[in-house]
């Protein structure tokens, strides 16, 4: 068995010398052994010793400690004044005591919520926390001044988003498939009828005649000229999207909706036009600030992701 002096020559000279001295000095293990023993003893004492007693007194500046969590004196005073609407000095001891009791109760419930892992499991708690972080991130961004030039540049870059509100006067005919008027009609028959009705309307047929002949009725979803936002609510997204592309006098192809087959007749259309900057200043300002806020949120998320350790299960991806 090699001795300490037979160590390979790759070891550092200082270490070799130390090992050589330890090997040559009688009782050289006594000191490390004593140190190890002392360490074990200290660790043992630490294990069996009673834990330090809980804090029995309130540090200055605090109104209460609840399981070690503090309620600041300043917050307590603010809460008392908010609840009572009076200055702290004018509030009776009984009311002050109630305020403190309520604050302690609230703290206990919050602590219980943490124990129950509410931030992990409760959507409302998570939403509030996300909103609070985003608000915090947004404040310095919102403090940055905004100029007319910045707003005009934004408006120019997003011109399509700034238009006047369009308007439409549209008749919405509906054919209730298999309804009272058409009890024996199949869907295929109804589609054929609706296509034929649209064709005849485009050819100049009388509206009343078409309605009577094919069994169409007015859905009454719209009435007269309506601004686009109102027409969208009344017609629903599918029919509105179709209507917004139509021009005066145009008749649409049949569209299937849950209540039947619809044919639209555009009586009059005012299409949205690009809005002048001054007409939409407020919206441009809000959009510009929202975009800044969103950029701050994204930068914050990027920072959090950079410092986070995220593992994703095999086969999944973001």
């Amino acid at each position, binding site marked *: 068995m090699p001795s300490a002096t037979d160590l390979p020559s790759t070891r550092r000279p200082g270490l070799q010398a130390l090992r050589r001295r330890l090997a040559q000095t009688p009782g050289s293990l006594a000191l490390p052994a004593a140190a190890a023993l002392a360490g074990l003893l200290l660790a043992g004492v630490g294990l069996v010793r009673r834990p330090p007693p809980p804090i029995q007194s309130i*540090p*200055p*500046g*605090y109104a209460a400690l609840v399981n070690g969590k503090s309620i*600041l*004196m*300043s*917050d307590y*005073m*603010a809460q008392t004044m908010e609840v009572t609407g009076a200055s*702290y000095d004018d509030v009776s001891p009984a009311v002050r005591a109630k305020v403190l009791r309520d604050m302690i109760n609230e703290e206990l419930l919050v602590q219980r919520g943490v124990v129950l892992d509410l931030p992990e499991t409760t959507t409302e708690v998570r939403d509030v926390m996300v909103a*609070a972080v985003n*608000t*915090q*991130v*947004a*404040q*310095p961004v*919102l*403090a940055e*001044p*905004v*100029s*007319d030039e910045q*707003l005009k540049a934004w408006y120019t870059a997003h011109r399509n988003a700034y238009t006047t509100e369009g308007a439409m006067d549209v008749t919405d005919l509906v054919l209730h498939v298999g309804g009272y008027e058409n009890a024996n009609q199949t869907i295929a028959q109804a589609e054929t009828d609706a296509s034929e009705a649209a064709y005849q309307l485009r050819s100049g047929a009388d509206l009343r005649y078409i309605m009577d002949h094919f069994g169409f009725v007015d859905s009454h979803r719209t009435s007269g000229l309506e601004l686009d936002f109102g027409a969208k609510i009344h017609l629903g997204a599918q029919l509105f999207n179709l209507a917004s592309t139509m021009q005066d006098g145009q008749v649409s192809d049949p569209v299937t909706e849950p209540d039947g087959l619809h044919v639209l007749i555009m009586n009059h259309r005012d299409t949205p036009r690009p809005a002048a900057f*001054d007409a939409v*200043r*407020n919206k441009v*300002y*809000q959009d510009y600030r929202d975009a800044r806020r969103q950029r701050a949120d994204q930068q914050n998320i990027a920072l959090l992701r950079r410092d986070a350790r995220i593992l994703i299960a095999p086969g999944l991806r973001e």
Partner: protein
Amino acid sequence: MKAWAALLVALVAAGYAWQSHRAAVRRLQAQLLQAAPDAVIRRSDLVKAAVTEATPLYARYCAACHGDHMQGNTALGAPDLTDSHWLYGSGSVYDIERTVLYGIRSGNPRARNVTDMPAFGLTGMLKPGEIRELVEYLLMLDHRPYDGQAALAGRALYLSKGNCFDCHGTDALGNTDYGAPDLTADVWNSGGDPGTLYQSIYSGRHRVMPAWRGTLTLEQIRALSVYIYAVSHRLTLH
């Protein structure tokens, strides 16, 4: 040998004196927090201890915005802390402490954040000419030279379309619940020349002060609040 003994005694005495001094300072610091915020100012020893402790803290944490001598900085919209005008509260130690603890629009849920100054011009709520009339009205309120007709029109705007009265009050004396400044006091956080007043109305203001709770200890925040109070109220330290 005697010299060594004397040196030892001197060292022990110096150590004892130092310890006694530290203990006295710690006692005062504890009392600074134990006392109700506005009771501190009735005890000159506490005020003195607070000022001693807060002076370097102010230089480190506050002077960058509020200036070396608390004179404020209009470029940053940081208020002058040496006068008797307060955006929030009445300037009591308690009010100052709340602001230092949680800041203004800091994002802390307890921050002072009721409202901010809207951008009346940028959003098209007021036209440039109307803003100029409002500026003339503000000049009139401050007893500075002004255009009478424009100021009259400005006052009408102040009380109607501009909605200025909603925060600053019909008497323009401000509202310290909202942080709306007194417009009659000729104290302007962002500058009071006509051009800056125009800019404040046109582009709005959204100033932010950080919350210092967490960065500073409660006792340091109390000391700073007392210090600011002492300077603004011209307390004499004996």
